């Protein structure tokens, strides 16, 4: 019986759709009440995913199911206004000819509520959003943050089955982003509200989402709990998104992977994060493995150094970029890319320049090893 309940939950939103003009083949299922952060490089298909759900884009094959009902496929297409899906974009896009109250009342009114009931609903929504005092204002009399909060209130006023956010904070002033984010967090957490949020900010993911859907090259390449994907990033994009290094190799024994013939990397295996489950040690030799570690775990040297708990890898500097108090040094090591944070003093002392050969020392205790497919 628990399994049938699980089935029902998984049925909330099921996407298995292709859009040939955008080279997208997207598969994703979302349970009721889940907040999914959709992350990925620019042009990977995140907006395509949202448009398929909103109904502004029709798949060339496959289908989109919502609440067990087919809303989009080759044979059927429920238009956006007949879905109960709200879409909040980067820009608030408040109707310029309506005041704040009537903007928020527009949705309920369009869905058949009387003028008075729609306005009451709108006012309640504005009050919950802390905007009641602005009800009579025109959109051009609002600040960017107030406008975006109004558009969130407008989206919530239709009691949407599903909320879609396409980089909702990207166009906001950095000083107001935290307030809008915390408003959204307050309106999403502890409710049964299901939402998809496209974002380029790790903070949004951690603050708002339960699940990450990682979209790359038109595909959902990974989907899992936020903590799991952040701790164990499956792709280079995800690793850079959470700010860690990711190296691929093959398992060479307990606590070791081989990056390329003769180059081994030692580390720890956090079993709790072992995605593929326990596997007998012997069977794992030669299987694909991954290593992650922070940019702070690397120190750079120009001559051989001692110290057994460290990995010593030959690397070439490809790029040097100051970043606040530290300098971000991009390295190429065993045909893969690494980022190290070092002090400006170290850069000067070691005379680090792009093209220079260095030795990257990585503390084994800072390296986490995972089983997983090799992804070039």
């Amino acid at each position, binding site marked *: 019986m628990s399994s049938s309940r699980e089935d029902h939950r998984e049925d909330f939103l099921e996407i298995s759709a292709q859009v040939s003009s955008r080279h997208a083949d997207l598969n994703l299922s979302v349970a009721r009440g889940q907040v999914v952060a959709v992350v990925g490089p620019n042009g990977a298909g995140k907006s395509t995913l949202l448009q398929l759900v909103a109904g502004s884009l029709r798949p060339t094959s496959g289908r989109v199911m919502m609440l067990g009902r087919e809303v989009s496929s080759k044979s059927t297409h429920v238009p956006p206004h007949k879905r109960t899906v709200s879409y909040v974009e980067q*820009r608030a896009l408040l*109707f310029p000819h309506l005041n704040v109250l009537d903007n928020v009342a527009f949705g309920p009114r369009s869905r058949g509520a009387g003028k008075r009931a729609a306005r009451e609903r709108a006012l309640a929504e504005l009050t919950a959003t802390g905007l009641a005092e602005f009800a009579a204002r025109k959109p051009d009399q609002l600040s960017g943050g107030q406008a975006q909060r109004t558009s969130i209130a407008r989206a919530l006023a239709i009691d949407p089955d599903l909320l879609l956010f396409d980089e909702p904070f990207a166009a906001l002033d950095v000083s107001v982003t935290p307030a809008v984010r915390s408003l959204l967090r307050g309106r999403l957490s502890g409710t049964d509200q299901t939402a998809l949020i496209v974002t380029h900010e790790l903070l949004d993911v951690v603050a708002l989402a339960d699940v990450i859907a990682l979209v790359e090259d038109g595909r959902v390449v990974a989907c899992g709990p936020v903590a799991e994907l952040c701790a164990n990033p499956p792709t280079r994009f995800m690793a850079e998104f959470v700010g860690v290094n990711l190296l691929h190799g093959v398992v060479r024994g307990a606590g070791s992977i081989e990056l390329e013939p003769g180059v081994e990397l030692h580390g720890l295996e956090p079993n709790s994060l072992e995605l593929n489950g326990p596997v007998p040690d012997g069977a794992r030799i030669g299987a694909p493995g991954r290593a992650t570690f922070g940019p702070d775990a690397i120190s750079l040297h120009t001559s051989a150094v001692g110290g057994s708990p460290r990995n010593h890898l030959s690397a070439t500097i490809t790029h040097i970029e100051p970043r606040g108090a530290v300098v971000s040094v991009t390295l190429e090591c065993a045909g893969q890319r690494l980022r190290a944070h070092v002090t400006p003093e170290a850069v000067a002392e070691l005379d680090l320049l792009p093209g220079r050969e260095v030795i990257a020392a990585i503390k084994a205790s800072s390296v986490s090893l995972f089983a997983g497919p090799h992804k070039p």
Partner: protein
Amino acid sequence: MNHFPRWAWAPFAVGIAFLAVPIAAMFARVPWSQLPALLASDRSRDALRLSLVTCFSTTVLVLVLGVPLALVIARSSLRWVRWLRTLVTVPMVLPPVVAGLALLVALGRRGLLGSHLHAWGIDIGFTTTAVVIAQTFVALPYLVVSLEGALRSAGARYEAVAANLGASPSRVFWHVTVPIAAPAIASGTALSFARALGEFGATLTFAGSLQGTTRTLPLEIYLLRESDSDLALALSVVLIAVAIIIVAISTKLSSRPTSRTPSIASDGGLNHV
């Protein structure tokens, strides 16, 4: 700092004088003291009434046909609809006499459609209806072209938002598209009204010149210009006054902030050919 060469003031002055002198000359010749009596005459009252009735009918027709037409051209992704955008502008550049001839060939008693209508007892040519049709034919593009441009540059983002909020396409049209495009609709309508008011060639060719039935203000002015130039001038003053009011309304309505036109650098140099 002015971003134009100083010599531009010369053509500027000539151009302004060229436009203003004829109007000023006319105002100087108008028999102002007899104006009320002249305008109260039968011929002028007929012409004024007819122009008013036909221009308002034309404006209603232009709105009813033009707004959805502009919307379809601006929003449709169909290729043949995009070609129609060019077709719509044709009556704007067509000599009005040719437009009248085209209408006659189509809707006249022996015309392509007109012959069928005649068989059913409907004759359009040389009626007040013909005046409205002629005016609509030449005035419609003015609304469509200006509104279509405004709709296209505004984009369909608000419409998409409204649809996601649950508004049906018709509700989106009435509650989002039309209110947001209201300034463009109003200024396009004013332009169309002005074009209809001044319409001469197509009306004369397709509708003729029957006092009280098809003889609008411009036609009457043309006929009176030699026999009773005082009355012709009096009627002209009315047309000019209406034109000034319309231009004022149109300017006020379309005075939303627009992107500044880039200044053109002029080095004044002559290239050897």
